[in-house]
């Protein structure tokens, strides 16, 4: 027979999984999920490549109507939030609850600032009669930044949940900071996608 009932592993006897297994599994799962997120945006990037190759002039002319300074500010805000998020993970690992909450709070504020900025940007576009059906470039602009904005909102929800969990003292002992690390991974992806969106949409030259 192929098996023996002997069990060597310590975690085999308990009914839960070991903390290390859970931690690694959660991280691995999140990485896989992030892969699917990139593919989701990948469809839009493919459409972007196709249409930009087809209509280079339209893209160049239309992109001038975007507000580069607002875009730049948002880029800086988001990169900074990624930095505070990374620091938050580090604080969680060091069991520094106070700094964890401060850093998560700053990250949340940055995300909110990004959203407010985007709101002004969108309203300015609508004010100038620019809508998703104006032309292919703006269709792409609204689809890409809109889908990204959805991810920012989702990320804000996650960060808020982490802050509440931290307040409840959930990241005290053992390997329990897993949610912070996994949530952090997600937030870095939101940042990363914007880093691609910014030059593709705002800096066509």
């Amino acid at each position, binding site marked *: 027979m192929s098996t023996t009932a002997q069990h060597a*592993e310590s975690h085999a006897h308990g009914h839960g999984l070991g903390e290390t297994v859970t931690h690694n599994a959660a991280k691995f*799962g999140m990485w896989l999920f992030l892969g699917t997120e990139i593919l989701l945006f990948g469809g839009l990037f493919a459409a972007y490549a196709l249409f930009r190759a087809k209509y280079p002039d339209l893209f160049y002319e239309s992109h001038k109507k975007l507000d580069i300074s607002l875009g730049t500010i948002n880029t800086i805000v988001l990169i900074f939030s990624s930095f505070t998020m990374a620091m938050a993970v580090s604080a969680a690992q060091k069991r520094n609850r106070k700094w964890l909450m401060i850093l998560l709070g700053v990250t949340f504020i940055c995300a909110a600032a990004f959203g407010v900025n985007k709101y002004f940007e969108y309203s300015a576009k609508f004010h100038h009669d620019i809508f*998703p059906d104006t032309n292919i470039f703006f269709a792409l602009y609204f689809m890409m930044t809109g889908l990204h904005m959805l991810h920012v909102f989702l990320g804000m929800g996650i960060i808020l949940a982490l802050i509440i969990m931290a307040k409840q003292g959930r990241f005290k002992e053992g390997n329990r900071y897993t949610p912070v690390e996994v949530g952090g991974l997600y937030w870095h992806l939101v940042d990363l996608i914007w880093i691609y969106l910014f030059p593709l949409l705002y800096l066509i030259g």
Partner: protein
Amino acid sequence: MANGVMTQTQYIPYLAQKGLKSWILTTDHKRIGILYLVTISFFFMIGGLTALGMRYELMTPELDFFRSTTEYNVAFTLHGSLMVFFFIVPGIAASFGNFLLPLMIGARDVAFPRINLLSFWIYLAGTAILLFALMQPADTGWTFYTPYSIQTGAKVIMITLGVFVLGFSSILTGMNFIVTIHKLRAPGMTWSRLPLFIWASYATAILQLLATPVVGITLLLLIAERAFDIGFFDPAKGGDPILFQNFFWFYSHPAVYIMIIPAFGIISEIIPVFARKPIFGYKAIAYSSFAIAIISFFVWMHHMFVSGISETAAAIFSFLTMLVAIPTAIKVFNWIATLYKGSIEFHSSMLYALSFIVLFTIGGLTGVYLGALAIDVHLHDTYFIVAHMHYVMIGGTVMGFFGGLHFWYQKWFGKVFNELTAKAAWFLVFVGFNVTFFPQFFMGFQGMPRRYATYPAEYISYHAISTYGSWILGLGILIMTVNLLLPLMKKSNYPKSSNPYGSLSLEWQVPSPPPHENFDKIPTVTDWTYSYGKNRSEANAKK
């Protein structure tokens, strides 16, 4: 273990707990597997009934059963959508995958049991949205090709939203399975000892993760196209209708392997047990699933040979399409080599497995045939395609599904069905299937186009035979269903042994039905799953 019985300190079968709450809030992978099994079987039945209705309509050239051709269009949209999105894509992967995966690798559950339940609920939400949308007749077909899907009055936004939500469920399940296989294998369950069903589930999960997001964005774009008029697929606005087809098939071609690869896994489990031989070419079978998965991403344009793509692109995709035949044939040859000089027992599940080999080979070879450019131009959108696709999907996936149902039935439910009735049902299914679909190769070749409710009188004999066949097939499935349902309602029909077929795989080393936690103690695996030759006398003695 030498004595083949895993001693349980306190054996409580996973089915023991009763009540609605114990089901809808369960995080037990086995129960979630049953939830999927029941749901997909239900939709399979509905989808099958719409197919019987279409076949009944097609018995005569005129419109007689349906009141209008639109009604016929609605029927085939319903048939296609139900069968593809509700039954065959989640099908084996979610039902058998959930039930077997932790048992086979020696784990207590999947890596994320709660996400697993969430994934089932998302699946249900998706089906609810989709069903609600389909209550208002839709006539786009299951492919939602633009520009028609933008112009039609049907609730395309709702339908695509439903499919989008279903995709989420698929992604979460795939993610869960990959992590489980990586992180939760029992000690000694090395990659080279993994059951082939696990290898197949792994390849499927990768496809789910890589392909589903792309159809997700495609459907979002279609929604945006209808809601905001973004013009991506509208040539009048500078868009490209072919882009939709590219996006759609970039997912939907790999998706056909999401449908079939789990069935490959089931066949690889059944054949060595009933041939009483180690599986031939274990690694070749395992790796070929991945070869198929990889190649499947580079063949999508073969659905679009007549859409006006360049001849160069068409020639390249034609060549790449034929490449898929290589890893697929590797599997078929290895299964046949496993049978060679085996001591074959014709259990009902083995009969389904053997019919799988025959029917899938016909389906696969006609696929290569269709991959040839010139021939495809002639056969595009004819009944030849319908026959090819059903030989792969029914002759392949559904045969694997039925085979798996008969093989693991005792393990799922702790009951036995009537074997003689099962064999009779198999006979009707096998004959009925061939009578239904074989004539369609001929009429397709002679030019009968697909998706029409009426047709020229010259095709009547083929259509009539096909309809008679659908009745035989329907009767076979009905008998099979009754045969599998009856034991569940009786207080008898308990199995004599927890491992009646002398399988060496881990799931057969626990009682039937398995206890809630699967294993009393996590087993340590010391040997390959398929060492049937070595332990032949021992395994035979146990029967």
